């Protein structure tokens, strides 16, 4: 014991986090007997009491005896398990397991985020692959064992919060406990002798404490006061917010949907399953959940840095849309940018990619237009070198007038390096010098085979490549307006001057995000309250000493040992002292009256 300032290594300015229990459980604090009731319930943290053992007790003879015994045994064990599960220790272990369990998902490819990598991993590891698969390591965050950890944790959490909340409500309705017998035993203590009457002192103290927003009342010869209930409230709020967040997240996962749609300028989209190029949804999602809306892509604008080290970096990058909510909503205009989605209810429409869609016209041998459309091509690099396929499925007749199908593999660069200068790689993302390179095939596109086909790839297994007169593969690099004639009167393909742009949109619908956000902010508020507010008690005892002079004693007790507590006690004491000052020697008895203590080291020098 000494009067060393416990807070000499004080904390950061952010506040006074209070977490070091002085009295978390009676077992720990040797002082508990002395402080008794006064130190109880300074928190609602559970005390570990559960002890396994035989719950059944003695078994009465006969079947009923056995039944009763079994019932006692079962309920006893059930209660024990429940207590274990909701204990702080198990919460700690589960939390630890949760962080441990999250690790493999960050190191092993996950099918949810990168299915290709998972496949590659399986191909490369013939032993580990199946093993990981069995353990659910390719989808850790939806695996049985990971779910088990967090479900147990949250059961534990609920089992912990409910009783704590009741206890806290009880504490709020009750009053701060009365003063312990020996205030000198408390972490912060002060005393003086005054001429004021004990009742007077208590009244003063009550007023001072109430003014300082303590909950205070007079209990026998002392005033008992407490402050900082928000700490507990904050802690409960934090834990409840965690539950809200989890439920919101789980809800969102189950009911979410996510789809992609590529739209060429002038094209449109209506939110129905059929409209998507690609669609994923949560387990409980149903098609009826899709928010009804539609939009058209009017125009895509991309401009790019022309010079300097960032040449090619987009400056503007946006899609102008008209959209309408509901089936027959009013048409409205909007602009969607990369980080600025269009939001309609739970649904967000993101701009995720962009490319070019050159318009081509295909004519048959007789000059009849059999195909005229903008064909979206997929970008391969940041300068939008693009690749794709043009498929003429029906309406085409070859030179002999027989039905056939045409396919062109297309390679497109918005900015060509120039003839003879390197290969077909774009030099810049804007349409400075567009060139379309084509080669053609005829035969069966294989579209009718019933198998879904990639629109950007040509399946040439049943096709023949066009050859020129010399028997070499027919190919051409076209500038806008130019035409490639197919051999033997098979027709022609023209690269029209109208080059359109396309944008890819990701449409996601995730209900519950608002709840998750609200929960998150509630969690922060609760945490701040829980960590920065100190819950503490102050007692002021005023008694008449043996010599008839009033002795005032003040003491403070916090949930944690903190430098702020003695400081605050000093401030409060000063306020009380102002109105009930130390009495002079003339009207006081000898100084060694109660409490009989010699001067402490480091204490006031006289």
């Amino acid at each position, binding site marked *: *014991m000494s009067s060393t300032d416990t807070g000499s290594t004080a904390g950061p300015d952010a506040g006074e986090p209070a977490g070091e229990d002085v009295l978390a459980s009676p077992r720990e604090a040797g002082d508990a007997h002395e402080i008794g009731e006064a130190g109880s319930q300074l928190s609602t943290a559970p005390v570990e009491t559960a002890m396994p053992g035989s719950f059944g007790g003695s078994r009465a003879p006969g079947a009923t005896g056995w039944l009763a015994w079994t019932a006692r045994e079962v309920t006893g064990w059930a209660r024990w398990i429940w207590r274990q599960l909701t204990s702080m220790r198990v919460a700690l272990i589960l939390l630890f397991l949760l962080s441990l369990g999250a690790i493999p998902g960050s190191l092993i490819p996950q099918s949810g985020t990168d299915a290709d990598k998972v496949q590659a991993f399986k191909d490369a590891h013939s032993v580990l692959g199946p093993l990981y698969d069995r353990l659910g390591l390719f989808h850790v965050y939806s695996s049985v064992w990971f779910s088990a950890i967090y479900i147990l944790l949250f059961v534990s959490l609920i089992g912990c919060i409910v009783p704590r909340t009741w206890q806290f409500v009880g504490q709020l309705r009750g009053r701060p406990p009365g003063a312990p017998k020996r205030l000198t035993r408390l972490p912060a203590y002060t005393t003086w002798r005054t001429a004021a009457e004990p009742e007077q002192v208590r009244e003063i103290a009550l007023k001072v404490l109430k003014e300082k927003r303590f909950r205070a009342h007079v209990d026998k010869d002392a005033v008992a006061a407490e402050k900082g209930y928000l700490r507990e409230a904050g802690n409960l709020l934090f834990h409840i917010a965690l539950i809200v967040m989890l439920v919101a997240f789980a809800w969102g996962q189950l009911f979410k949907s996510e789809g992609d749609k590529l739209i060429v300028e002038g094209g449109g989209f209506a939110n129905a399953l059929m409209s998507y190029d690609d669609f994923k949804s949560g387990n409980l999602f149903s098609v009826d959940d899709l928010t009804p809306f539609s939009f058209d892509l009017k125009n895509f604008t991309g401009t790019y840095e022309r010079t300097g080290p960032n040449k090619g970096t987009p400056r503007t990058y946006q899609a102008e849309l008209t959209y309408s909510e509901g089936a027959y909503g009013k048409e409205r205009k909007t602009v969607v940018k990369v980080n600025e989605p269009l939001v309609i209810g739970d649904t967000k429409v993101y701009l*995720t990619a962009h490319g070019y869609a050159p318009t081509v016209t295909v004519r048959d041998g007789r000059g009849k237009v059999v195909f005229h459309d903008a064909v979206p091509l997929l970008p391969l690099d940041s300068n939008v070198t693009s690749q794709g396929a043009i498929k003429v499925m029906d309406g085409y007749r070859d030179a002999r007038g027989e039905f056939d199908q045409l396919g062109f593999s297309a390679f497109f660069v918005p900015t060509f390096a120039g003839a003879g200068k390197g290969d077909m790689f774009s030099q810049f993302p804007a349409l400075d010098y567009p060139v379309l390179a084509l080669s053609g095939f005829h035969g069966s596109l294989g579209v009718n085979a019933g198998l879904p086909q990639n629109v950007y790839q040509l399946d040439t297994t049943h096709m023949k490549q066009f050859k020129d007169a010399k028997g070499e593969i027919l190919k051409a690099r076209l500038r806008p307006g130019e035409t490639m004639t197919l051999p033997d009167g098979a027709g022609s393909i023209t690269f029209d001057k109208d080059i359109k742009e396309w944008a890819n949109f990701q449409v996601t619908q995730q209900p519950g995000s608002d709840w998750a956000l609200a929960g998150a902010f509630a969690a922060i508020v609760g945490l701040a309250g829980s960590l920065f507010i100190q819950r503490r008690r102050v007692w002021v005892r005023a008694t008449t000493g043996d010599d008839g002079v009033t002795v005032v004693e003040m003491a403070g007790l916090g949930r944690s040992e903190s430098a702020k507590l003695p400081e605050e006690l000093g401030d409060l004491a000063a306020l009380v002292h102002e109105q009930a000052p130390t009495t002079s020697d003339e009207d006081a008895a000898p100084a060694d009256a109660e409490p009989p203590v010699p001067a402490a080291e480091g204490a006031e020098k006289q």
Partner: protein
Amino acid sequence: MTLATAHDLGAVTELATATNEHLANISNTLIYSAMAVYTLAFFAFIAEWLFGSRSKVARTASALTANGAQAAAAAPAVTARKGGTTTVLERPKVVTRSASGARDVPDGPGAHGGDEQGDLYGRIAVSLSVLAWGVEAAGVLARALSVRRAPWGNMYEFNITFSTVAVGVFLVLLALKKNVRWLGLPLITTVLLDLGLAVTVLYTASDQLVPALHSYWLYIHVSTAILCGAVFYVGAVSTILYLFKDSYENKLVNGGKPGRFATSVMERLPASASLDKFSYRVNAAVFPLWTFTIIAGAIWAGDAWGRYWGWDPKETWAFITWVAYACHLHARATAGWKGRKAAYIALIAFGCWLFNYYGVNIFVGGKHSYAGV
């Protein structure tokens, strides 16, 4: 259909910026100068410790060894204010008393050990640190201006910003008159290592700009992440020192005789209880901010990628770090897990933070790969 470029486009709305080569060179010069001044500060801190070793304070030992304990026990818990001759209107004196069972060890006097010359060097070291910090901060600023965006586009920039903020946290604590000068030597040592790593291995010429993703949530997210990291780091240093000091005190209590070097160093550090409390407070104080950092990241991810949480490696490790620190705070509240055990958890938690910062960028990748190595 999956588009290879889908997410690369996240990087595109940022207004392209012309690099100002001149400013970039100034920035490099400033960073090198800061390293030079930090080196001087480092030597001054060493000098403080060396001169401090002349003093023979042994407060810890005397408080914990047999004779000392007696002396302490003799000291009473309470002082009564004895009446003066007239009515006294001073504040009543508050006496404090630690929880029973707690070791009552006074704090060491600091690295200088009460030695006047040591103290002088300590002050010089702090002044040099302030100077170096100013130069480094200017370097970071010049870098930011040269690329016309926040200075955390790659790991080089992240490192120089991080060490600036860490030293800043230290200096703020000093300015608030907290007893933290003992942090100086370990902190400046690691800052030098961090900068050394930055200018050699991690250096990225400032014109190699990976455009930052355009959202103010990103700015909030990354700046608070750096601040949290710096504060967690200060907490971790204190936790490590706590573990050493605690072993030292345990040895004394058990009648052991620590070596001369250990005695000399440990006697000058704050008491283990103070170190423990300091690291706890530091960690607890930033924990809500760390929570906020993750949430800000989630909001931004929601805008940029269409989902606020997708178990991307960086997200996952931020979550792991968060849970580990929550574990630490829980441990403190649970009987039987305080002290050393809680300290180990705090170190593990900081290890998670470090891994998220270096490990994920280097070994794992993921969508956050904009923070290119």
